[in-house]
């Protein structure tokens, strides 16, 4: 069994390395553009953290839906096709971890921005609060996975994933209403209200680069989880194959 997968693994590793190389190249170009984009009018050079903040926050809303999709597929397949269900579960945990990763970076860069723009580390504005809630939701998903009894992890976390994915738009809307009612300093006022065209290359290269990076990390985590699953299955078969011990 190990031999059969080693060739497939080798070719997958090959593609993985290629993807990584491409990603690093794109990120390097992105870095170049981010550092050479014209200085911002009010914030000087401190605004450049935006080029890292923006892709991470946008993507942290994408990965949860990959997680939700994988969870639905897991529930759908777990009766009929066990192997596919396992793959779906591996994808679900990988995408949840990447969500937490990206949300963490989004929060950290957001706080750096707030410090640079307003001199305060945190502001309860609509965006930062939404990122915080997203982070809380998916950390709770990871906690559930670690607290759950073995063998039931996949099912219970799949259910939570569905609830969390439904909750995201509700969170987003409710927090926006909250802040239109009681306005707080608006974060990143420059973000949608027009980015100067001269900054577009930096924005786009970083967006693409960090998407590629996210895909890479997700794929890597998926592969690790699949390996762990295969190891568990091999262990189980080994335990079954052991001769009975006379009691």
């Amino acid at each position, binding site marked *: 069994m190990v031999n059969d997968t080693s060739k497939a693994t080798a070719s997958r590793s090959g593609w993985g390395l290629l993807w990584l190389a491409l990603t690093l190249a794109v990120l390097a170009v992105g870095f170049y553009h981010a550092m050479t984009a014209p200085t911002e009018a009010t914030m000087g050079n401190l605004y450049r953290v935006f080029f890292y903040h923006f892709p991470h926050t946008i993507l942290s809303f994408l990965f949860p839906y990959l997680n939700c999709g994988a969870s639905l597929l897991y529930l759908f397949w777990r009766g009929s096709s066990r192997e596919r269900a396992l793959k779906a579960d591996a994808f679900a945990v990988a995408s949840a971890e990447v969500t937490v990763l990206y949300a963490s970076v989004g929060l950290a860069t957001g706080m750096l921005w707030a410090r640079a723009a307003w001199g305060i580390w945190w502001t309860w504005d609509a965006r930062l609060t939404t990122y915080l809630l997203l982070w809380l939701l998916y950390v*709770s998903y990871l906690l*559930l996975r670690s*607290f759950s009894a073995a063998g039931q992890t996949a099912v*219970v976390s799949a259910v939570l994933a*569905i609830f969390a994915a*439904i*909750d995201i738009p*509700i969170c987003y809307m409710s*927090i926006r*209403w909250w802040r239109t009612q009681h306005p707080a300093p608006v974060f990143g006022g420059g973000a949608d209200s027009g980015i100067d065209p001269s900054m577009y290359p930096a924005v786009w290269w970083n967006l693409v680069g960090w998407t590629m990076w996210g895909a890479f990390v997700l794929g890597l985590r998926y592969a690790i989880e699949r390996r762990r699953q295969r190891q568990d299955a091999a262990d189980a078969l080994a335990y079954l194959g052991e001769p009975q011990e006379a009691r």
Partner: protein
Amino acid sequence: MSYAAHVWTHLRKDLRLEWRSKDSINGMLFFSLLVVSVFAIAFDPTAFPGISRQISGGLMTVAVLFAAMTALSQSWVRETQNGVLDAHRLAPAPLSALFVGKALANFLFVSAVELVLAPVFAVFYNLHPLGEVWKLLLILPLGTWALVGNGTFFAALSLRTRNRETLLPLVLLPISIPALLAMIQATTAVLTGEFEPTAWLKLLLAYDVVFTMASVLLFETILNAD
């Protein structure tokens, strides 16, 4: 038996069990009183008379939240005793009816506590609501159902974990934040009369419908997750 009849059977059973032991209600009532007292020390209404209306909505919602958590964390205890849950899993009745019955029972218990808590709060904080008080009769039930519905569901989900009591708040609170926000904002709107709670009421209603549907559809999945 129809679905509604099954729900009614489960509800009657939960009410009867609670009536016999009175574990939940007594604990919740006293706990809520304690929480209100602690809040009064933390946010002294006499020292800051101007803002007591602004923050009371939030304080009361948090007090209700704590009260609800004490009820929710042990709402499935009687089913886990003596393997009763297995009997439910083997019976042909739809399992989601068990959930709805229990959620309704929890809803009634928490609402009973709210009926006591609200006047106590009004007295401790010298509250004279400036908005339309009758709207509280919509806000409180909708908000309570949001908490209790999801709470009953996740309490059942946490039966499948190693540290049940620890996990419930960790999983319930993030999901419930929009509902808590809506309940706080709507209550504050009624207390201060500064804005209309309508938008928040609609949000609560939508939240309740969506998550109740999700809970009913997924309950059997988590109960049979073995």
